[in-house]
């Protein structure tokens, strides 16, 4: 009666083995490491890795292990001294192509890492760092677009030679005045064909005016773009901060979460994240040699020396053809012959200016410069001094094929990836909607370490106390219940690690709570078995009925807690979500371990004795 077929034991054994494999990486200590990642998101191959390794070895800093994963490479070191020295070495070789950062990585052995068994990420409250929640000023984004439409209306109507008296904007509505209804209807028809999906155009009753509002679809697109644009800019800036594993995520429709682990100074982070970016289109100085200018440090009078991201020097004319604020949109796509390209749209003012300067310079080289201004603060004698710091970088050089207007494209790009990157940078350099910090949390590193210790301590002491009680009270069944509880803990750790979840302090609390609640299922079973024995059932029968009867109750009682967990997950924010995830997963693992695993152990201990007269419970 109390026997499992062999395959069931094997299956349970296999699950336990997998659980152990995926849970143990969490128990290896973290070792100091230096991480590099490609700023262009290119894959780091073995040769590049070797180049870094050789440079490190030359300085006597042989990494204990090094590995690459996608566009990131990690070098592990024995101690923090070596790590700090190595960072200097790596920085030198990395140049502008790679960003480098200090990190702590798990010392999980390679064979475990090969199985993708990695430890959980530690949340900011456990490792220290800065958390920002930023909100995009959507009103500003919408305003900017309305102003653009206002501009464009004038152009479109003028080009079609439809006379209008004026274009005005009030709130979210643009009104165009006409002399009579016939002109108004002509204007309405033209504008409707020009903006079929973006705008809702209607005549205003009792007047000869028409009014335009943005369609819900357009509103949504604008908001989505504004958010995306800001995320891109933030990502680029965070790369410069040299943070390992930064988190930059959309939250809801208008907000962005930025989490930077290990950053000690929130002010520095805030300054860099709050930098403003712009673009300048400039002509290339083709009469002089850039390399020569770089070497001799003699730059021609009307030119200026710039660098590309890979370090190539470029001589550009001082005169600015166009700035980023005129760019309305930039998208990656393909040109007529199906090569990667970036399509750029300018507003009407920009288009007029651009048409003039490009018309004069056909067949010459034009470059795009990305300019970023950061306000840095320094504390001098107890006073904060603000200093603005500008970095400039050439992001593209292309030949002007013909006079360029409102819409034009940049071609000759190496790949679609490059096109996407360029489009993102162009958009980021265009005036993005402003960001506001609506929530900020800083956790010092000492606090993080304390939180981990406290969270783990409460788990360990609680667990020991429960185990002692269970064994005294239920004896052999208590031992079995305690083992099942430990299995539950391991499985929970394993699943969280497989999901690469982020462990936070509320998460640790939830683990403690689920362990406390998980024992409930075993208590239910044990009490039922005792009851059956008391009613005179033979031991084997009592065990069987006990498990069967308790099953329904276990499901019912766990499902109600699961409902609470799901609601918490759906409506909770940040740390509460982490708590909810652990709670829900903990319920699932506890049902498995308390019912299936403990039953298997009971069957192994008692199942083989047909004439069992006594059970220790």
């Amino acid at each position: 009666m109390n026997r499992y077929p062999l395959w069931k034991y094997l299956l349970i054994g296999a699950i336990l083995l997998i659980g152990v494999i995926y849970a143990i990486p969490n128990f290896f200590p973290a070792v100091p490491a230096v991480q590099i990642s490609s700023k262009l998101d290119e894959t780091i191959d073995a040769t590049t890795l070797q180049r870094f390794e050789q440079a490190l070895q030359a300085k006597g800093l042989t990494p204990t292990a090094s590995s690459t994963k996608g566009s990131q490479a990690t070098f592990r070191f024995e101690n923090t001294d070596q790590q700090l020295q190595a960072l200097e070495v790596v920085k030198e070789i990395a140049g502008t192509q790679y960003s480098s950062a200090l990190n702590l990585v798990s010392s999980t052995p390679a064979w475990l890492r090969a199985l993708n068994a990695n430890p959980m990420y530690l949340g900011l409250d456990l490792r220290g760092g800065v958390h920002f929640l930023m909100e995009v000023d959507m009103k500003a984004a919408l305003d900017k677009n309305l102003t653009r439409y206002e501009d464009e209306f004038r152009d479109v109507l003028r080009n079609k030679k439809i006379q209008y008296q004026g274009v005005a904007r009030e709130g979210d509505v643009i009104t165009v005045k006409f002399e009579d209804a016939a002109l108004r209807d002509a204007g309405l028809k033209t504008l409707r064909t020009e903006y079929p999906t973006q705008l809702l155009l209607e005549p205003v009753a009792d007047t000869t005016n028409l009014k335009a509002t943005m369609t819900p679809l357009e509103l949504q697109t604008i908001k989505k773009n504004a958010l995306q644009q800001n995320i891109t800019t933030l990502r680029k800036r965070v790369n410069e901060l040299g943070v390992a594993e930064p988190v930059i995520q959309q939250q809801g429709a208008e907000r962005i979460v930025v989490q930077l682990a290990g950053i000690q100074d929130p002010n520095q982070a805030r300054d860099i994240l709050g930098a403003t970016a712009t673009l300048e289109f400039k002509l290339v100085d083709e009469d002089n040699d850039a390399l020569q200018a770089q070497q001799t440090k003699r730059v021609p009078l009307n030119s200026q020396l710039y660098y590309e991201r890979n370090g190539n020097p470029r001589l550009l004319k001082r005169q600015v053809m166009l700035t980023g604020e005129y760019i309305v949109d930039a998208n990656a796509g393909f040109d007529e012959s199906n090569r990667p390209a970036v399509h750029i749209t300018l507003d009407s003012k920009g288009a007029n200016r651009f048409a003039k300067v490009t018309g004069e310079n056909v067949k010459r080289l034009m470059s795009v410069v990305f300019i970023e201004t950061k306000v840095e603060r320094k504390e001098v004698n107890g006073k904060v001094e603000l200093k603005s710091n500008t970095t400039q970088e050439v992001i593209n050089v292309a030949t002007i094929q013909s006079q360029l207007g409102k819409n034009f494209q940049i071609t000759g790009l190496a790949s679609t990836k490059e096109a996407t990157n360029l489009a993102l940078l162009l958009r980021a350099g265009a005036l993005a909607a402003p960001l506001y910090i609506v929530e900020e949390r800083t956790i010092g590193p000492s606090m993080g370490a304390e939180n981990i210790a406290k969270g783990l301590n409460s788990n360990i002491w609680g667990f020991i106390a429960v185990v002692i009680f269970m064994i005294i009270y239920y004896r052999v069944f208590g031992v079995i219940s305690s083992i099942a509880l430990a299995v539950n803990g391991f499985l929970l750790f394993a699943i969280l690690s497989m999901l690469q979840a982020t462990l936070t302090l509320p998460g640790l609390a939830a683990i403690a709570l689920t362990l406390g609640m998980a024992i409930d299922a075993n208590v239910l079973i044990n009490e039922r078995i005792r009851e059956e024995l008391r009613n005179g059932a033979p031991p084997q029968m009592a065990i069987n009925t006990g498990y069967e009867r308790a099953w329904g109750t276990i499901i019912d009682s766990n499902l109600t807690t699961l409902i609470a967990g799901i609601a918490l997950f759906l409506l909770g924010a940040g740390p509460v979500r982490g708590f909810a995830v652990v709670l829900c997963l903990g319920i699932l693992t506890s049902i498995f371990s308390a019912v299936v695993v403990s039953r298997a152990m009971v069957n192994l201990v008692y199942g083989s004795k047909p004439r069992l007269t006594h059970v220790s419970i």
Partner: protein
Amino acid sequence: MLEFFHFKKPIPFMRYGKLTTTISLVTFILAVLALIFKGLHLGVDFTGGTVMELRYNQPPPIEQIRTTVKSAGFDEVLIQNLGTSRDVMIRLPVKEGMTGAQVSEKVMMTLKTQDPNIELRSQEFVGPQVGQELYENGGLALLLVAAGIIIYLAFRFEWRFAVAAIIANLHDVVIILGMFAFFQWQFDLTVLAGVLAILGYSVNESVVVFDRIRENIRTMRDTSIPDIIDSAITTTMSRTIITHGSTQIMVLAMLFFGGEALHNFALALTIGIMFGIYSSVLVASPLLLLFGLKREHMIQQTKTLEGMNPDGSIV
């Protein structure tokens, strides 16, 4: 066999129904009064504002910190020790025209003129709008959990069980909130998570008793409903206390070892677990009687249709 709670005969809980209901009603009303007159001491998660945690080298004079912070232009300031005497928590409300970062920076600068060795252990700023949203979402989550549980229990048992369970457990929640209001313990996001977890957890307690009531109704054919309930509570008593005991052990470990960050969370759970036992035994079950639970509600009736043959088939 080691047994703490073995009763030979069912304890007549239902006979004390009036008494226990009165006790519950009184505690409930007290809790509501505390909520109305004292109100919850909401954390920055919900109100918005700035919280800074500082560590000093020596125990600092709190009064002096207060005057210093006030002199920097922050009138509404709350300062208290946190755990040890060297750790100080400073809480400031949202200030018009200043970002949270500017606030904490200014406070730090001012305090550093007094003692340059202060360590800023953590700092937290929540904008007023975010706070409002978290507060609303918290309320919504509470409703969602309650609705989900009612639907599940109504489907699994019967509506009387569902309503009795949810009343009993919302009663627990109100008492936890009342205690937090009365003692002015800080109520923040983690405490809310604890309260919601308790709601799910103590319903599970009622479910175990209900399960037994349903089983008894089927097996104890000649017994009256109050006796059936008494027997169900008595037989599950041992399990109830042991389960809650072991969960409480874990929570106590959190209360003692978890530090300041988990303190109020563990406190909410402790109250919840204590009242959870009481309410599922002595509130939910009398409510079942009050709602008029009858044997027929739990036993599926074989309906007789017109023109049905004795074997139940219809031609």
